[in-house]
């Protein structure tokens, strides 16, 4: 029994919580661009936190279910419907064989998560089923290909009527101006004080150059007294400042190493929020202390029961 893809839309990918433990040979971690929305979808269905789901970017996705189960839809509001009837985001829905789930265009946010009870049954490669197109790893065939028309993603049927929804206070507003918490680090010492001040004072715009590797922003350029550095490991959320001075935030499918100076890292939960912003949206940076960022992330990880290894 499975879910059959009748239209993959712009991009739909199998993702789980990511492929850990192979960065030393250049394998990207990948995983959900918005872990907050992804983790809620699994939680609504009582799944393991890392069970495979479908990440739908920008909509136009359509699929048919071959068996009864419960689904959860979280993240961006892509105008999702079941059999043509609009359904609420951030909650579970009982579905039956033959039901058609379809997405239109983004109403708010950019990426939605579609989970089924028990998770999709997708083989793992290097410990994960997450799709990283550039690494040719993961997904249905294990070779990093995106979902395409005719793909069939297996799941175990279930007649449990799960109808939980996410409490309103945990549902983010993706239209709100986003402030990104920054932990200064990496080559911060090579950015003059007035450049760092400008970095925190500037409103940046999300450009068209956004993908799973990173988000390129546009605004007042930031100067660094280094041209390049010895290539080094790149953290999730690292803020890279290339020669043109326009920040690039490095996200899930980033390369493992890189040789541009970096001013620090944004908090990982802010990186997840950023992935729901679209070209033209405004963002700002705000300095945060590492200890505060750690405290918040620990609360989050405990709540969702994250067990990295």
């Amino acid at each position, binding site marked *: 029994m499975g879910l059959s893809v009748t239209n993959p839309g712009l991009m739909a990918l199998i993702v789980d919580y990511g492929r850990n433990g192979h960065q030393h040979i250049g394998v990207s971690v990948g995983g959900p661009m918005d872990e907050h929305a992804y983790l809620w979808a699994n939680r609504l269905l009582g799944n393991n936190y890392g069970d495979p789901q479908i990440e739908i970017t920008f909509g136009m996705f359509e699929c048919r279910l071959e068996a009864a189960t419960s689904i959860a839809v979280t993240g961006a509001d892509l105008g999702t419907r079941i059999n043509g009837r609009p359904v609420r985001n951030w909650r579970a829905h009982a579905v039956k064989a033959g039901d058609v789930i379809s997405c239109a265009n983004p109403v708010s946010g950019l990426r939605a998560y579609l989970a089924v009870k028990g998770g999709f049954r997708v083989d793992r490669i290097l410990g994960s089923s997450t799709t990283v197109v550039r690494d040719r790893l993961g997904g249905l065939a294990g070779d990093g290909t995106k979902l395409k028309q005719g793909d069939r993603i297996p799941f175990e049927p279930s007649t449990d009527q799960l109808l939980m929804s996410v409490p309103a206070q945990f549902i983010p507003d993706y239209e709100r101006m986003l402030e990104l918490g920054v932990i200064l*680090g990496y080559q911060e010492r090579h950015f003059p004080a007035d450049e760092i001040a400008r970095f925190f004072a500037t409103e940046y715009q999300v450009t068209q150059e956004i993908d799973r590797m990173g988000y390129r922003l546009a605004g007042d350029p930031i100067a660094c007294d280094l041209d390049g550095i*010895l290539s080094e490991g790149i953290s999730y959320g690292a803020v890279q400042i290339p020669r043109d001075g326009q920040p690039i935030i490095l996200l899930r499918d980033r390369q493992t190493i890189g040789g541009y100076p970096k001013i620090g890292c944004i908090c990982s939960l802010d990186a997840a929020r950023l992935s729901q912003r679209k070209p033209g949206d405004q963002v700002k940076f705000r300095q945060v202390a590492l200890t505060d960022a750690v405290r918040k992330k620990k609360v989050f990880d405990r709540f969702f029961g994250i067990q990295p290894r």
Partner: protein
Amino acid sequence: MIWRTTHSSARIDRAFHIQPLSENTLIIYFGQQADAATARRIRRANDAIAHLLGSVLIDTIPSYGSIHLTYDLLATDFSALHKQLSECIASLRPDPVQEAGPKRIEIPVYYGEEVALDLHAVAALADLTAEEVISIHSAQEYTVYAIGFTPGFAYLGNIDERIQAPRKQTPRRKVAAGSLGIADRQTAIYPVESPGGWQILGRTPVDLIDYSKASLTPFQMGDRVKFISVTRDEFLALGGSL
């Protein structure tokens, strides 16, 4: 008169610096220079850290002059790690056997015309014959300085200054899997077909990334690598494709 001391390892810089990066990552800087001694020191430190931290360690990226670590933030924190890592790295003593390189890997390469797309351009730039470029490139032993770009793509250095060549002005849209390239002071093999701007000198029949094998790739940070020039027939017999 030039002195060549046999106790060069005694001069290796012992300094290092640990810096927090994000909620669950940190970086250890060992030096700002790409050289074989630093690469081997990082390899030893990386092995020791993996042993020290066990399941608390989620991921490690050794590269040129640093090691980037991802850890389980529910199991430890930066200040505890800083103490543990400082003690661990400070206690590492140079081991003459290890300093010579953990492993030497021989990689067969076919430097023939039909695969060595930039051999003549590199030879012209160096004012050498194609044969001289091949003999210089394959004479020397290289060290793995980093692995990245794509899975299994190993940056090897340093190449002989006589055959140094910059990256191509316009990168190729497609470079065949197994292609051996050079750029500036480094050389590398493209494990899979990908876009790329390195000057291509040959091709290896060896699979440099194989997800069905436990080792995945033959290279690890700090390994020594030697290219062995093979004939077209040997290349094909070893499973190479043209």
